[in-house]
């Protein structure tokens, strides 16, 4: 259970994430929608515990491994897709021999032993998702997982998301393909009415759940 109260992130004068309130229940599949620059990526990095807050309060953050973020432009470590997935498996304390299975689940089994340097953007995205899933996280955060994918790629990623049992957050400008239970919009420049509407929706959800969290991040 992650609860964020009025969180925002600024880099100097630049607002990377306008004030946002959000609750994330276990097993939920949340879509975060918004145009470029609306703060989707920043929000995911906050939820992944990688981005300190400028203001607001957040509870229930999970450490790396239990909550895994797949970046908008994922980085694959030097080597092969297999060695990348094996790295995640090692961190999870599981046998590296499972690596191929995870790649196959994303339709990337044939890439297993290629050099990551030669992979296309879509292939990288699939390998990165396989690597994240191999870690078996409780929360999975995907930043634009469908961008640059061809049709088979989209189907494979979609199916993998559907099969994922944990809490899922997907950020994208449009979320038609995603198997989601709820949508939340982010706007680039918060207009008062928009914020009010957003907060009332989330506020209603917050009321449903008793506040609980094992970590608290307070904006500085």
């Amino acid at each position, binding site marked *: 259970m992650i609860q964020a109260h009025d969180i925002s992130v600024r880099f100097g004068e630049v607002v990377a994430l306008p004030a946002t309130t959000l609750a994330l229940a276990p097993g939920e599949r949340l879509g975060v929608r918004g145009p470029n620059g609306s703060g989707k990526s920043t929000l995911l990095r906050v939820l992944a515990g990688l981005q300190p807050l400028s203001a607001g309060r957040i509870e229930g953050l999970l450490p790396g491994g239990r909550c895994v973020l797949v970046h908008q432009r994922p980085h694959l470590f*030097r080597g092969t897709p297999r060695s990348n997935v094996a790295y995640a498996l090692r961190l999870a304390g599981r046998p590296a021999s499972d690596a191929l299975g995870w790649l196959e689940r994303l339709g990337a089994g044939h890439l297993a032993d290629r050099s990551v340097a030669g992979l296309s953007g879509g292939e990288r995205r699939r390998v990165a998702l396989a*690597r994240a899933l191999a*870690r078996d996280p409780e929360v999975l955060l995907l930043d634009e997982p469908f961008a640059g994918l061809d049709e088979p790629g989209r189907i494979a990623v979609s199916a993998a998301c559907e099969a994922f049992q944990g809490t899922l957050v997907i950020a994208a400008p449009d979320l038609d393909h995603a198997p989601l239970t709820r949508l939340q919009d982010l706007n680039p420049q918060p207009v008062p009415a928009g914020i009010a509407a957003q907060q009332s929706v989330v506020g209603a959800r917050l009321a449903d759940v008793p506040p609980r969290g094992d970590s608290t991040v307070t904006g500085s």
Partner: protein
Amino acid sequence: MDLLGEGFAKAWHLVTSGDPVVFHALGVSLLCSLCSLALAAVLAVPYGAWLGLARPRGASLHVFLLRVGLSIPTVVIGLLVYAFFTRRGLLGSLHLFHTKAAIVIGQTLLAFPLLASLVHGASASLDPVVAESARTLGASRLGAAARCLGEVRPALLTAALATFGRCLTEVGIAVMVGGAILMDTRTLTAHVQSEVGRGEFGAALAAGLLLLAVAVPLTLLGMRFERGRRA
């Protein structure tokens, strides 16, 4: 031009005859440079990586000081080591002056700022996404830093080669601190200087060519790594 011809002829003779003085000097050069590189790496790699990856407050001051350190002439480093290790110095009782160990200490001081700033440059050029990817998969801070260094492995190898070459080709520390003692602490560069002092320009050039014969393949190796990085 007769000097060049004489130099090449003598160099060939030195190599084929296995001249003990020159090969001992080459051995001292390689040994001291290697030890200095290893010692410097133990300190400079974590330090440079910390500056480049964690970007602590005041990192730019550290980088500035490293740059200053880069421009300290080798004889000044030699003087510094001299001040500490001479018989009348603070650490004189260790009797390290005019030993290979003293050369290694001096060359480590020479190598540290160079290696640290190269490691800093390599790690600072990394996209933050790299460290975040490791962290979000559950790697510790240290584990993520190690991953990041793994990502810039070619640059690290190039840095190590450049540092090794710097130690191999310097003469100020080797003479000042090592004393250039024949068949003991005389490095190849000190040997070149000694031969020049004797007026044996041909023999000096020959020793210099031998040094070049070692340094050039290292440079080529470095360029290979550099290309590998861009690929």
